[in-house]
């Protein structure tokens, strides 16, 4: 039996998963919110091992991804787009693109059926469409993260956020509230501007048809999913279908664990060859 683990340290949450011979046996997610992510990763992973009655020694390959390049107890590190791609096809074999919305950056990754990254596009620098921005605004508006999606979907007249800078966009939002714009409309407006950014990223990758799987923390925000679907419709891109998956948030960690298994086999081969 071979166990591998994937640890995805994001800027919003730490995700850990354990696989046994390609089978997914454990998952855990912890929002960071003002805690040290490295300590949290250690703690969360320990808890998970305990739950499964495992020892760290039992894990053949501990793979990190995300901001986990410096995790001391890891066997190896994979870059997030590599892992999200792999995790994406694991969760949904139909997926031909993975859209990962992190706390700071968004990425659109165009993949083939084996999870090979064909091309990708990432947002850079200025980001009013980032997950963190949405979270900040939600907190400001007094909306719990879990409720954002539902509220957004009730919106009738979404109000768009125009500022490119997240800081100034915050002020935009304050102005909206003072103009009496409903919370739902503001949230939807943010969703729309995020969706339009994501569609832009998707287009730049060159994908033309297939399923687009949302991964990462905001994948569960069905308001965003909805906005993305709408945006695809208004852009008349009917050949792309946007979906999410209940376990979307684990995509990076899953990919890491799977790649870890792959590397583990490779390393074993190499060792055997060297010994022979």
């Amino acid at each position, binding site marked *: 039996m071979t166990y591998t683990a994937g640890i995805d340290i994001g800027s919003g949450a730490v995700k850990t998963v354990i696989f046994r011979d390609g089978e997914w046996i454990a998952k855990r997610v912890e929002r960071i919110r003002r805690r040290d992510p490295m300590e949290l990763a250690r703690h969360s992973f320990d808890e998970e091992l305990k739950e499964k009655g495992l020892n760290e020694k039992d894990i053949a390959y501990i793979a990190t991804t995300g901001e986990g390049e410096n995790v001391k107890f890891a066997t190896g590190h994979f870059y997030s787009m590599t892992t999200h791609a792999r995790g994406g096809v694991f969760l949904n074999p139909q997926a031909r693109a993975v859209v990962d919305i992190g706390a700071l950056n968004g990425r659109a990754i165009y993949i083939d059926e084996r999870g090979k990254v064909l091309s990708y596009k990432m947002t850079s620098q200025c980001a009013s469409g980032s997950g963190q921005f949405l979270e900040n605004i939600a907190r400001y508006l007094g909306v719990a993260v879990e409720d954002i999606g539902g509220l957004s979907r009730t919106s009738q007249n979404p109000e768009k956020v*125009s*500022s*490119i800078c997240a800081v*100034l966009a915050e002020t935009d939002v304050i102005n909206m509230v003072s103009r009496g714009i409903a919370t739902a409309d503001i949230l939807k407006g943010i969703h729309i501007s995020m969706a*339009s950014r994501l*569609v*832009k990223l998707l*287009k*730049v990758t060159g994908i033309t048809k297939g399923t687009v799987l949302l991964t990462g923390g905001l994948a569960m925000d069905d308001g965003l999913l909805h906005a993305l679907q709408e945006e695809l419709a208004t852009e008349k891109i009917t050949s792309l279908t946007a979906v999410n998956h209940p376990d979307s948030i684990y995509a990076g960690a899953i990919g890491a664990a799977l790649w870890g298994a792959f590397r583990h086999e490779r390393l074993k081969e190499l060792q055997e060859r060297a010994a022979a």
Partner: protein
Amino acid sequence: MSTVTPIKDAKKKEVVKEDAMWIQKELINKNYHEIATAHETGRKVSATFVPGNLNELLMCFDFARRLPETDALQNGLRKKSGKMIMDAERDGHSEDVCTYVKTDLGMMLQGQMGPTGEPMPNPDLLLLSYTGCFTFMKWFELVRQKYNCETIMLHTPYQGDGKISPAMRDYVVKQIKEKVIPACERISGKKFDIDLLRQYMKESVKAEEDLVRVLQTAKHRPSPIDGYFGAVYYIGPMFTAFRGVPEATKFYRLLREEVEQRMREGKGPITPDGEMTEENYRLVVEGPPNWTSFRDFWKMFYEEGAVVVASTYAKVGGVYDFGFRHDPEHPIESLADYCLGCYTNLNFPQRIDMICKYIDEYQADGLLINSIKSCNSFSAGQLLILREVEKRTGKPAAFIETDLVDPRYFSGANVKNRLESYLQMIKQKRTAAAAAVA
């Protein structure tokens, strides 16, 4: 306190325009129609840029003349550019680069529907007359990459030392003679006739004379025109496909008469909301305007009684007020001089001199710089202009930032805040100066 009173006999309810302006609008619409139907009528289509355009020369070959910058601007005014820019960005163009280019490419992606709603044919000739901006070069390379149009480069060297050397002129003349004209002949199938060129240029000169008169009426107090927001309408025909066209010459004559009449009557400029009746501030503006919120932008000025008496933008297609005229006697050479002398081909000391001169001659209260995110040609170094002008004229200067056609970069509140602060500052200083005298 309102400084604007609506004009009774306005042709249209919501917008007020000078009479000549309606002619101008017709001209432009007609041109778009000509371009749209060029291929049906057996004409070839050229595309070229505003600064340093060889309009008279292109007329000699009967090209229907497209100016991609004007298309972008028109799309901006009609609030269509935002979507085009997004489309171009989705097609892989960077967020950082000139939005005129992206508007143009976005328009192509959307099926080449022109600003007036008529489809635009692909150009048969991209005349890359390259004056004062490197982006132009990339722009046509990009268009060529997509549409395979024939491209002719006319490289205009920069006035790095603040003067036009004979070598520079020779270089441009040679390119026109040996490259541009033969290519035009080949593409259009028409032989070049230098006398025709002379004849068009004679028209140009008349119109140029009148335009200069119009712009200079702003020296009068109160100024009968706005030398920035109003001027963009005045310069339209001259800087685009109409210089050398008799209708345009008529337009300028009419405009001049109208404006001079207003000056004699002591009237202020006409704004979209009517005539401005109180001139509180006289400003010189450097940098192109914003098109997507053109009206709102202008309104911030006239609501406060601020008139722009002179602007550098009104010189992008030729610095006529400092004496340059096309010369029918030496047509090719004067085309070369024209290319070499456009505002953005001037070096920094020249640009600063020009602004200082405007502040002085037009008795302005100060300089306002509208810095355009897109346009490095204008923007890079404007803060030095600001400082030098302040130092040399002793007049206050202010800085605002917008974009030409990218609505994401126009923040009304931000611009208003700065403009208001600036005008209040001028006022406060003036009161203090008056108090000191008293």
